């Protein structure tokens, strides 16, 4: 049972990875060891497929609403979409005071996209992996935000935007000055560079790892609860636990999506802020 459980958990936490095996060439990895040998040049096909698929769902839903958007009486979909848009617009205009039309739509994209990815966590953990197994696919991890590649990939995009806008607003020299002459005077530049560099790098790392950590832990608990569905008594208990955790998780997935979006806006607002001398 213990070995079975370990196998079960491991199976649920393994991505469907496509990469170059040192001996067998390009193929889907069959186990964790094969994935390890593939190194960096491999792709978690399930993560990317679900992530992009959900991104497309977002674009189609909101695109439909945008295409049909009129000033008249809104329908159900348009109403829901506009509620989210207004919520994000209010939030962003409260945090981000500079002129940049990209920020609010990007925050909307992050919020809805991350929410949809997190939402996959509420699908019972066995349904899709078992269906995939029946269809001949070894592994299928359906929650992209439990894959650090996905969360850190988004964080990297945010980081690139931070660098881009820092340089765009302050100029190369202004950005360097911020890194070298702050918080201590210029003659402590190396210390400043270390401090500011860590601060700067901590932004994307914490952004990506926070989302990953929360969702990975949540997924783990769902898997552990799913392990209980053996006997009748444990099964009933497990069902109750599953329900309770799912209810709580609704809060977590929304909150994490919102935190990711808001922190992105905050970081980009900081990138736009020109530090006054002191």
């Amino acid at each position: 049972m213990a070995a079975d459980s370990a196998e079960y958990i491991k199976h649920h936490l393994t991505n469907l990875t496509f990469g170059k095996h040192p001996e067998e060439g390009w193929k889907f990895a069959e186990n964790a060891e094969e994935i390890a040998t593939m190194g960096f040049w491999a792709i978690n096909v399930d993560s990317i497929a679900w992530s992009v698929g959900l991104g497309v769902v977002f674009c189609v839903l909101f695109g439909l609403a945008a295409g049909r958007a009129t000033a008249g009486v809104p329908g159900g979909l348009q109403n829901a979409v506009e509620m989210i848009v207004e919520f994000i617009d209010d939030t962003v205009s409260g945090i981000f005071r500079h002129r940049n039309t990209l920020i609010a739509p990007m925050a909307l994209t992050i919020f809805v996209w991350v929410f949809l990815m997190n939402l996959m966590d509420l699908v019972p953990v066995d349904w899709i992996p078992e269906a995939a197994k029946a269809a001949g696919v070894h592994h299928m991890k359906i929650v992209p935000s439990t894959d650090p590649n996905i969360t850190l990939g988004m964080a990297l995009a945010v980081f690139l935007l931070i660098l881009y806008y820092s340089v765009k607003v302050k100029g190369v020299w202004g950005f360097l000055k911020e890194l070298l002459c702050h918080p201590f005077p210029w003659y402590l530049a190396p210390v400043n560079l270390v401090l500011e560099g860590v601060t700067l790098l901590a932004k994307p790392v914490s952004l990506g790892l926070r989302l990953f950590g929360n969702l990975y832990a949540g997924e783990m608990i769902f898997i552990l609860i799913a392990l209980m569905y053996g006997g009748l008594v444990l099964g009933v208990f497990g069902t109750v636990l599953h329900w309770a955790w799912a209810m709580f998780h609704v809060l977590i997935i929304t909150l994490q999506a919102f935190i990711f979006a808001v922190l992105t806006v905050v970081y980009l607002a900081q990138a736009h802020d020109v530090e006054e001398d002191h």
Partner: protein
Amino acid sequence: MNITLTLLWQTVAFFLFAFTCWKFIWPFLIRAMRERQETIAQGLENAAKAEQDLHQAQGRAEQMLTDARAEARGIVDAARGQAAQMIETAKADAETERARILAAAQADAAQEMNRAKEALRAEVAELAVAGAEKILEGSIDRNRHDALLSRLAAEL
């Protein structure tokens, strides 16, 4: 759990979706929402104005009704006054007519009485003369005393 090429793909996907939302979704939704906000604000404003107009119209109608009532009361009062006056006039006319008729009747009666008196006088004079003739048995010259008797009769 390894960091792989997946990360960079996700970064690219992020930019693509953010760009799509930025260019093709957000502006249309925001524009429609702003327009609806304006429409609703306009509608509310119009409704408030219409309500105000209604109040004004109601006030005017009330005023007109009050005026009409006052006017009607004035007309009724004037008519009553006129009727009373007409009755007064008619009464006065009737009174005058009565007085005139009375006066005429009195005058007629007086005339009649005078005429009767006249006749009586004449008769009394006749009788007196006849009586006196009988008493005096011709001693009285009828022609001589006629003037005297006429005077006597007139004095009666």
